């Protein structure tokens, strides 16, 4: 009877252990795809953790033995995979893990960290550690493992030889008798007194440890490299050491540390100017500074921007100030490749900083076959806003993509100036409604006499009546931005205007006029609006009523 119960308990445990192992497998596959704050990640992680909990509620520990292709629980196979690909047993086995044990009280925090370790990108050169090292460093309270040291004892390990050799080297003629007799004779020689630590000593030590962190600060390594430069007189070594600076810059970029890159670049500048270097060496050093402008480097910057690293916008902009005009084509190319809006914004900012040194090269970006690159370059040119920019911008008003044309209208409006209106006037006749509306809105925003006259001329055209209601409304709203007697008079006339033919279209126009009068706040138009309010046309009726409410409140 007992035997049966034991056997049932055993098979139940094996099933729970299998569940937990499958959970690890799932965690390795699925959780890699999501960031830890993603709801799918959280839900899946909770489910898998519960599998461990289920087991550990009934048992003190879950101990798994690992071989190349299988994982055993109590000698029972709970995982098997003879393939090399996606083999979880092999994943543990190849780094030397032969047994892994999860103890009761294995916490959710520990589980999350464990999953984080399993999902580290061990193929990447950035992860220098193997699985055992990462587990060891995390020092889990409720995970124990046994790792083989076989690989540490390869052909290099020659204990017996080295040990025998070491003993051989030791002195063969022990002479205790002499030592003993000297010991009895010699005057007393005492060792130094014990030293005791005070609380201040601990404070100093704690501070030192806190300041150290795990890795040396970039400032420290740069100081070291500069010292290496000071110490060398050999041009070849000098070039190699300068190469270290380039590698350090690259390392900082890969880690998204643009602030440190700025520090390094500033330091190079000061160092080059401190008068301690010969001219030829200054040129080599400048080469390290200029690395940031080359194509491969800018591509690396792009990868960093697209990664999950947290990059501060102001730090990136500060970095961009160190770029020169040779970086412009690479930055433009990067704009065509970046996927994230935030990354693109960073690069636009960088191009704004550096583009003003060579607007012509920047404007090359307007020929990109990617409409969004053209649009981004328009934004950049708009921010630079010099006379050259304006010239390049106006050329894109005929770009085939309406999104580009809209962008350039907005940008030109931002720049302003007399010439801009000429271009807008053309845009009022664009084939695409949204482009025309953009042009109308921007003309309204300009609020000049000239802009008003262009708009009124358009409104007065015979065929204006036939335009789509939305577009007409935009026109009237734009006109309303310029509040003067001429505009009021025009609007009142339009509101009062009646037609026998095309009555519906005319009422639409009247509704637009009512709307504009409401925006202006023209109290003299109240009687006309009251009348229009009783119109049978629902649209006119509604707009007149809304304008009246606006005027009376």
């Amino acid at each position, binding site marked *: 009877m007992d035997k049966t119960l034991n056997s049932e308990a055993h098979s139940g445990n094996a099933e729970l252990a299998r569940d937990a192992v499958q959970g690890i497998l799932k965690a390795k596959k699925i959780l890699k795809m999501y960031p830890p704050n993603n709801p799918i990640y959280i839900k899946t992680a909770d489910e898998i953790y519960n599998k461990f909990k289920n087991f550990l509620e009934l048992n003190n520990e879950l101990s798994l033995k690992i071989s190349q292709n299988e994982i055993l629980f109590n000698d029972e196979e709970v995982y098997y995979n003879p393939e090399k690909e996606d083999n979880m047993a092999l994943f543990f086995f190849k780094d030397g893990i032969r047994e892994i044990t999860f103890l009761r009280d294995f916490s959710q925090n520990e589980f999350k960290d464990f999953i984080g370790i399993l999902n580290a990108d061990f193929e990447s050169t950035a992860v220098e550690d193997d699985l055992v090292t990462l587990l060891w460093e995390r020092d889990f309270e409720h995970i124990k493992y046994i790792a083989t040291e076989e690989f*540490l004892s390869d052909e290099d390990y020659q204990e017996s030889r080295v040990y025998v050799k070491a003993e051989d080297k030791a002195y063969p003629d022990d002479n205790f008798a002499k030592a003993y007799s000297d010991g009895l004779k010699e005057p007393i020689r005492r060792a130094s007194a014990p030293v005791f630590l005070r609380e201040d000593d601990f404070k100093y030590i704690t501070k030192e*440890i806190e300041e150290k962190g795990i890795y*040396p600060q970039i400032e420290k390594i740069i100081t070291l490299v500069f*010292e290496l430069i000071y110490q060398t007189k050999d041009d070849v070594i000098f070039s190699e050491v300068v190469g270290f600076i380039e590698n350090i810059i690259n390392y900082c970029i890969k880690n998204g540390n643009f602030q440190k890159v700025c520090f390094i670049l500033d330091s190079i500048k000061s160092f080059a100017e401190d008068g301690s270097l010969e001219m030829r060496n200054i040129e080599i050093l400048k080469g390290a500074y200029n690395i940031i402008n080359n194509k491969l480097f800018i591509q690396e910057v792009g990868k960093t921007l697209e990664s999950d690293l947290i990059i501060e916008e102001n730090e990136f902009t500060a970095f961009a100030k160190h770029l020169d005009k040779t970086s412009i084509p690479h930055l433009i190319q990067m704009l065509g490749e970046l996927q994230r809006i935030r990354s693109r914004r960073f690069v636009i900012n960088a191009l704004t900083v550096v583009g003003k040194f060579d607007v012509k090269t920047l404007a090359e970006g307007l020929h990109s076959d990617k409409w969004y690159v053209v649009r981004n370059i328009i934004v950049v040119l708009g921010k630079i806003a010099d006379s050259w920019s304006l010239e390049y911008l106006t050329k894109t008003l005929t770009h085939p993509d309406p999104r580009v044309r809209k962008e350039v209208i907005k940008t030109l409006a931002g720049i302003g100036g007399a010439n801009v209106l000429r271009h807008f006037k053309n845009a009022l006749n664009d084939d695409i409604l949204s482009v025309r509306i953009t042009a109308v809105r921007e003309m309204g925003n300009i609020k000049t006499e000239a802009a008003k006259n262009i708009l009124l001329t358009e409104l007065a055209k015979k065929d204006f009546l036939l335009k789509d209601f939305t577009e007409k409304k935009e026109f009237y709203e734009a006109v309303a931005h310029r509040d003067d007697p001429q505009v009021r008079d025009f609007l009142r006339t339009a509101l009062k205007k009646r037609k026998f033919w095309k009555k519906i279209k005319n009422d639409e126009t009247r509704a637009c006029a009512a709307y504009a009068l409401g925006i202006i706040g023209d109290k003299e138009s109240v009687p006309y609006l009251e009348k229009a309010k009783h119109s049978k046309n629902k649209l006119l009726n509604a707009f007149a009523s809304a304008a009246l409410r606006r005027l009376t409140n």
Partner: protein
Amino acid sequence: MPLTDKEKEPKDLINQLSVMIKTAQLYHTDNIAVINAIKKFSDILSPIVSEGEAALELVGEFFHLNGSRIRYSMEYVFNYDFLVREFRKNELGSITFTNVLHEDEIKNLLAALISADHSDIPFETLQEAAKNIKNISIGKLRKIAQESDEFNRKKIIKRTYFNTVSLVKNISNKISMGEKTNLKKAKRLMEIIADQIVEDESLLISMTTLKDYDEYTYYHSVNVCILSLSLGHRLGLSRKVLSELGLSALLHDIGKIEVPKEILNKPSEFSEEEWRIVRKHPTWGAWAILKIQGINPSSMNAAVSAFEHHLYYDLSGYPKIKSKIILDLFSKIITIADQYDAMTSSRVYSRMPQPPDKALSIMVERSGTQLDPYFLKIFINMIGVYPIGTLVMLDTNELGLVFESSTNPDFIDRPRVIVLVDSTGKNVKYTVDMMEKDDKGNFKRNIVKTLDPNQYKINLAEYLL
């Protein structure tokens, strides 16, 4: 990731137990300060014992709660170390709380601990005084390993040591050929050494008495690595930092591969020109590491240590520098370990090394100039006033070798000794603990003088390993 409340409890328990004992040593147990401390302790303990008993045990240098090691936290370092000392002083190995405690029970425990403080047989006194406390039981401090385990542990430690020597040799060869080395293997060895230090640092430190003047640099690098890791462990460095420190220590002298062998192996004193070349090894080391290993966290740490390990605390060493440098923590540690091992090693040009205690005396003279005074204090406490390998004469007219430092921080001048000549002048081999007391409570033996084992050509390896 921040610690959960559950993970915080054990550390807080240690801290509050320590605070409570300290307070009780100053005031009567009925004093409000003690009662407040008891209340706080009880608040921390209650949720733990409500889930079952709470067994607090001292194993080696660490406390364990119900079998799980309690993390050493710098936040509570002072109180953690105090409690370790209290336990050791009273030969107390464990306190087990079996239920939620009444205030009087804790008061009785404190009174028992205080009575043991003044006793020659502290644990027995404590046991007698605490026997009637219902929900508290105590256990005697036990040695980490039984004699039978000692042999196996030594074997494992030796294997690690020689694997590391072999690794340094390999790394040096590769770097001298301009080949990049994969440091994964080195990191794994650092982890093993760090674990062995946590378990029992004496055994590993005794390995550093192994010196080989033919392959001095390799052995020296491993010895400096072990001594640095031991010191780092004493400082409470995290595991990851320890691993980085070990690697940096292992590579600190890598620049010597650029020093011509004829100079390194010269059997006489260096000329001024030869010294000029030897003094370049820190610069060459940093350069070689950055060139071959590239830029990564470990190589940056190692390059900084290689460059700074002869700069000295007051920056009076070499290489001469232009910038204002603040010495790195690793460099300060490695400099101490480097000087100690160099002074106690025989080298081609200096066959007669300094005896360990003499080396320490010289280092004390350099405190605050060449060496960081704070870290040196900890180093001396770690090595002991009589370091492993010191030949000592006892007041019983016995001659012996120190083979294990004292684990009692209040008695670091009372190590364990292998007696090699007894009081009658006969060659023998047995071990004694300088902490042993006679019936009257006096120490049975005292060290009266030290001698230089090198002067008498005593093979340390034979006795210590």
